[in-house]
């Protein structure tokens, strides 16, 4: 169940860095987008982006990953025996 580094980068590191950077850059700005404070418009855009990033990781790396279910079944069986 060790994730690939590429999966961690796409699903966690890139969106995480983007989120923090965006808040730091836009948080103090008086700029508005369609009347909405820029930092809030940015956060709203991040909602679907975060889902998209995880979905890409899922499709490319994690859908067919080894979830070690056989390993768990084996030990659970021991504990219930």
């Amino acid at each position: 169940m060790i994730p690939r580094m590429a999966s961690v980068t796409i699903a966690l590191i890139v969106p995480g860095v983007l989120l923090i950077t965006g808040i730091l850059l836009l948080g103090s700005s008086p700029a508005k987008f369609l009347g909405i404070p820029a930092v809030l418009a940015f956060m709203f855009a991040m909602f679907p982006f975060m889902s998209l990033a995880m979905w890409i990781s899922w499709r490319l790396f994690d859908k067919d990953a080894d979830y070690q279910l056989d390993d768990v079944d084996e030990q659970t069986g021991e504990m219930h025996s």
Partner: protein
Amino acid sequence: MTIAMFVLVLLVAVGLGLYSRVGAGSSTSDFMVGGRSFGSIVIFIMVVGEVYSIGTIIGFPGGVYADGVMYSVWFMGYILLGYPIGYFLLPLLWKAGRKYDAVNLPDILRGHFNSRTLELTAAVLGVVFMVPWAQLQLTGLEVALSGLGLGLSPLVTVLIGVGISLVFVLLSGIRAPAYVSFLKDFALVFVIVLVAVFVLSKGPNVATIVAEADLGSSHSTIPAGPPMINTISTLLFQTLGFYMFPFVVQAVVSGKSPVGIRRSQIAMPLYMLMYPFLLLTSFFAISAAPGLSGADTNLAFIEVARQLLPDWLLGLVAGGAALCAIVVLAASALVIGTLVSRNIVPHVSEARQKPLTQAVIFVYLAISIVLTLAAPSIMGTLINTSYYGITQFIVPVALMIFPARVRPSVIALGLAVGSVASIGFYVSGATFSGVNIGVPALAANLLVILIGRFVAPAPKALRSIALRGGTSSPDTRTTSKKVRSS
């Protein structure tokens, strides 16, 4: 009409709670983790249901009313960043939960580190820092019911909510909050969108609402310096604790497979698309209901609803909001009961765990009622207070994934030091130039681990739970088995 709609919502919820008993077993396992039979949709609903409590619908607008975008950015940010962390972390917690036959985090820690001390420390801290979470629900419930304009006393208000929560939990265990969450999650989004639609149709446009909110003091920017530091540090600190809450771990180990749990994380951020609607109402409240301060800022959302909605819809809104508190209160109470009967009180047989859990639930709710009535608080403060302690659990969880030669007793000491430090900082009013006080408390926790690692290291590091077969030695599993069958 207002009351009729309110009662109707709650009756439907009680009906669903009772329906959840159909086909359910009566074992302790079924009571606590639904027989580990929940699929990805139920897990999604449970996690969403328990994360988005009345703190979202009532507390969030109150926080924005008081602090503007600063509050909303850390609130939305830590939840958003929590999901990709959960994407990688939750399958590992599920695996550990299944291997150790665990129903909660202290179970997992005992199984992995083979330590009763660590289990007990984690359980006690879990109980202590879940009390503000219950206060949060009861405070929100008071606000929601005040919207009905019945003039009910706070005591009567919280007793109504607690009474319904007890019906859910005592009859159906975890199945009731799981099933009722379907209705509650729908009601949450419906209520938020409904009020926002009324704001848009009866109020000015978005740009004017934001401009009017900025007239007194700026609500649309985060000032540089300590406020920005506080926003970022709170976001990062609480995102680490997002999936450490006892009720979330209990929901995760209730799942059928790690694949379903991971898939559920992908869709979670889309549920957050309700926030733009909630923010609209929050900003509108600043100009529509001026003059609220302190704990009264909690009233922001319900005040807007009272001004704009017809009576029967107000009843629906109050009912939906109350349901958010009741479902989360029920799930939290069940988790607390489980922690005490299973992890704190030693040598309780499986058969006696269920009645003991039910007794503990009574006591937990009673304590929460007293604290809610004795010390009314801003809801955002209650959320932060829970996180100060709960986030400390990230350290032992990280050590399960990235092993180090640290003794379990040192890990327990680190948890205790981090938690006590956070309480100390909170009580003393320490500010740390804007840094969330949970951060230095977490640093204290880590310092204990570091000292323990080099002064009195464990003979060897355990295997990571991420590795195949990687949890603990055969001796540990035997111990775990003995405890289970006692």
